[in-house]
Structures are given as C-alpha cells and as structure tokens.
C-alpha cells in the first residue's frame, strides 16, 4: 500500500487519505470509550468499523460528526487539521451520516425529509423565502431536481409523498440513506445500515451501498455487525474492542488476525 492509494482486488482505484484520525482518546468521566486509536479513510473506499457491543464504534462516528470532542488526538480532514467544531459545521464540510436507530423526521413526508438533507446547498435568506417567487423558488426547484435523482437511484418514487412514519422499517432505512446522500457528501458515515433487516433487505442495502460508492464515488465508512456483509463489501476493516484498535487491514487480513478471533469467539483463560 503506497501513500497515493492502492487498487482493490476488483480493480477500483482508491485515492489519497480523506480523513485521518490520530491517537484519538475519548473519556466520559472515568470511563474510557476510545483509547488512543488511529486510522485513516481513503478517497473512494468502503471502510468498515467492526467490534463487539460497547467497543466504541458509534462513539467513533460521533467524534467524526463533532458530537463528541475527544480529549486527546487530532482529526485531519482533506489534509488540514480540524478544529473542534459543532455537528452542523461538520455537515457543511461534507460529512453526512445515517443512524443506528432510524432518526427520520417523523412528521414530514419522504420528499421533505430528503429535501432537508439538501440544506447545506441552500442559501436563500428568510426574506427571499417568505416572498418565495424568484430566488427561493428557483433554488427549491434546482434542489428538487437533485433530490429526484436520488429518489430514482434508491427506487423510492412511489413513497415520495408518504409521511415517513407510515413506512415499513426497511424503506425507512432507505429514506434515511437518501437523506444522507442528498447532501452529496464527500464522506458518508453509515451506523449499522443493515441492523434488523431480513436477508432480502440486507442484499438490497448492500447493493445500494456498492452502487453509491461506484456511481458517485462517495467515500463510505460503515459500522456493521453482520460479518458476511462487512467482509463482502468493505475494502478495509478496523476492528475495535473495549475502546482499543485490535486490527486494521483488508477483510482477509482481519479474518486471520488472532486478536480479532479472540475478541469475537472468546479466549480460554486458565
């Protein structure tokens, strides 16, 4: 693996480092959630973070999101060290995310949910909005076009106007992915995109994740518990256990790592 990237076994070119976490430590009082973890995410790759429950995976995403601020360590994004910022400022940097427990806006339609995801692209002020005709309407139409492309892409045309609260679980997950994609993110974080799905829904979701990566070239970091899926779709895997990194590498390397096997299968103490 060189500094300028690598080529995956299926022939995709992976570029330079987009995000680099350097020696991140996160504590809540006396509890150490993340302990001195470093890893990088490269342009165009699908990077998985795995680990048993409570390993600190979601905390890691929250650190990337700016929701938690690590006590130690540095976050580098696009070659510059990132100052501590608020979550909405992180969104404007081009980092979008989905949630482990669906976090859609229940009172709004599918379309409105996805349109909300475009808000980092909308600039009309409150007066222009109130008058509507002119700048605000043009902006709305332009963004609606972008949203419709994503709706087509994820095959959710038929539920465009349905309130999301009425949708089944699998579709809600898909709408949430659509909302994240609407931001046209440089880095997409997926927190357990396949949790609670049946095999068919998992296959659909895997296909969408691969398609997103392939068609838009979006860099993806995902947390997932389904090992089969992770090993199939990700290019490189970080393994965490009790807040520490115990493995990092391609799926094959990770699969054969003794520490990882111990963490997942348990180890005999005598």
């Amino acid at each position, binding site marked *: 693996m060189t500094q300028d990237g690598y080529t995956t076994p299926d022939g995709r070119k992976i570029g330079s480092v987009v995000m680099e976490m350097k020696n991140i430590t996160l504590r809540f009082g006396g509890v150490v959630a993340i302990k001195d973890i470093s890893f990088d995410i490269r342009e165009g790759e699908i990077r998985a973070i795995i680990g048993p429950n409570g390993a600190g995976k979601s905390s890691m995403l929250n650190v990337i999101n700016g929701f938690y601020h690590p006590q130690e360590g540095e976050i580098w994004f696009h070659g510059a060290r990132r100052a501590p910022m608020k979550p909405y400022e992180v969104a404007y940097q081009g980092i979008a995310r989905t949630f482990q427990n669906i976090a*859609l806006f229940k009172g709004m339609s599918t379309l409105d949910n996805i349109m909300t995801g475009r*808000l980092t692209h909308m600039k009309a002020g409150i007066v222009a909005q109130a008058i509507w005709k002119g700048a605000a309407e043009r902006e709305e139409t332009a963004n609606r076009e972008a949203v419709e492309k994503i709706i087509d892409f994820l095959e959710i045309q038929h539920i465009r106007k349905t309130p999301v609260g009425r949708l089944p679980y699998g579709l809600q997950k898909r709408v949430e992915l659509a909302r994240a994609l609407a931001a046209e993110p440089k880095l997409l974080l997926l927190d357990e995109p396949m949790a609670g799905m049946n095999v068919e829904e998992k296959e659909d979701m895997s296909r969408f994740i691969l398609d997103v990566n392939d068609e838009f070239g979006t860099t993806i970091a995902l947390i997932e518990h389904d090992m089969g899926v992770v090993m199939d779709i990700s290019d490189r895997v970080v393994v965490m256990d009790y807040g520490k990194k115990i493995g990092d590498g391609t799926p094959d390397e990770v699969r054969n790592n003794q520490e990882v096997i111990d963490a997942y299968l348990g180890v005999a103490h005598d």
Partner: protein
Amino acid sequence: MLYREAGDFKTSYAEDSQTFPIVIDRVGYYVVLAIAFGVIPFLINDYWANAVFVPLLIYAIATLGLNILTGYCGQVSLGTGGFMAVGAYACYKLMTAFPELNIFFCVLLAGGVTAGVGVLFGLPSLRIKGFYLAVATLAAQFFLVWMFNKVPWFYNYSASGQINAPERTLAGIVITGPHTEAWAKYLFCLVFVVLLAWLARNLTRGNFGRQWMAIRDMDIAAEIIGVNPLKAKLSAFAVSSFFIGIAGALFFAVYLGAAEVGEAFGIQKSFLILFMVIIGGLGSIFGSFAGAAFLVLMPVILKNVLVGMLGWQTDIAAHLEFVIVGALIVTFLILEPHGLAQLWRIIKEKLRLWPFPH
C-alpha cells in the same frame, strides 16, 4: 366523484409543490378570497365585525404565529399574551410618538419590535426544552405584563394606566378610534391576515420550514445534517413573535380601541391561543384558521342558540357557555387529537373516493 386529482398532471416541480395542488382546492381558495374581499365588506355591520369577523381575523394571525413556533418548530410557548402586549404597546408608542406615520407601518413596525423581544425570550430555548421552556416563556408573560403596568412611559403617563388608540386614517379612511366603520376595521385586518398567511405558507414549505420541523421531530439528527439549532430556533421565535406582535397591535388599535394590559393580554390570552393551535392542528396553516374560528364562533353560536332560540336567561347561558365549550374541547380532543386540520384531511381523503368504496 367531484373532488379528485385524477387527470391533473403536473409538469414542473414548481407546480407540484404549490400550495393547492388539487384544482378544486385552488378554486375554493379563490372563491373564499373573493367573498372575503368582495361580498362581506358590503354586508358587514358593527355586531358582525365586533363579535365575529375582526376577532376571528386577529386571533387567526396570533394562532398562525404560535403555530409556527409550537406546531412547526416544536417550542412550547406560554408567552403569547405578553408578546401581544409588546405589539400593542409598540404600536401605541409609535402612533403617539409619530402621528404622521401611516397606521399600516405602525402595525408592521410593532411586529418588528415584538420579533426582537421574542428572540430575546427565545434564547433559553437553546438550553431547555419542553415543559421547562414553557415555564421560561411563562416568565416572559408575567414579566412583560408587569413591565407595561409599572413603567408609566409605556402608557404615556396616563392617569388610568390604560392606552387609548388615537384616530388614524389610511388613504382618507378612518382605521382606528371610535369613529371607525365596521367594514374598514374588517378590511384592514383582512389584508394583514392574507399577507401573513401567505408569508407563513411560503416559509413553512421551504428550507426554513423544513429546518424548523427537523428540529421539532429529531433535534440531534437535524443538527448532524446541518441545521444550526441557534439559527432555526431563534428564527422561529422571531417570525412567530412578528405575527403575534401584529395580532397584538391590531387587537389593541383596531379591535379594542382602549386596553389595560393585565385584562387584555393576560395569561388567559396565552392559553386561549395555545388552545386554538391545539384544536386547529399543530403544524398546519389551515388548522390555525380552523382553531381560531372554532373558539371565536363557538361561544357566539352557543349564545345565540341558548338565549335567542331557547330563551334562557343571559347569566345562566353565559355560565353554561363555559361548561359547554370546555366539554366540546375535551370531547373533540379525545376523538381527534390531531385537531381540525387532521379531520379536514380525513374528510378530503374520503371525498377523493366518494361515492365508490375503494
């Protein structure tokens, strides 16, 4: 049969996101507008203006305002009466300090002043939510009423502590003061209602409205996708207070003519408008009108039925009125907790299929 969208194809996104996508709704809206502007002003008399139309229009503005804050942005407020008082006193000070200033601009500027005050009292919303925020806005209610009572500058040192609207004209027509004609009051308020309802609709269907609803539905997710909570909440407070301030200014200057703050803008007013929002339907423009209409019309209708038709004594009827209105509200909220707007949506859904079962 009659009410349906079949065959009405939209060919642009602008058409698809218009306010009334179904033809019959659109026609209905223009018919209502035409009657409101073209018929009612010629038929209206003092009784209808003072008992029904003017309070209905003014409460509709206040309800729209509170609905933006509570229904769309999810921030509960019990300070509506206080903010209406700010609008009223700002309008009074502007009218007396600048006699040359057009009454239309006095009312608008009063809304602007209230928006500023609203933002100030909205600041706690960045830290506290739900019931605790309601208590914080309750403090605003009591503080503002107290301030308008205790600081004589606000009521121009008048002996009674009341404020009286001086006579002001717009294009030669008397709008405020005792010599105002019923139709002039009505039309003046109607213009504000139409204008503000249009602004409210535009704001709630666009980017700002979506940010408010995002904060309401899931504030953490909203922040992570890029909603600045400070900007979203304070803009909701500003817009909401702007509406409520205009309602307060009209309530004092056009409707009452003279006002004493504790009586006209007390805590009862905050609750009344909150009830209008809840009965009408949270997060609905139509619901704001429906809720205001329900609570303004219900006592009037009851009074006419009990006293006029059944011949009861006025005092008994007046007391029973409270009981019946209260009972109606409770019954209604049990049957349809999402308000009149939801009821209207269900009726429309049914009408689309009628007369076929599926």
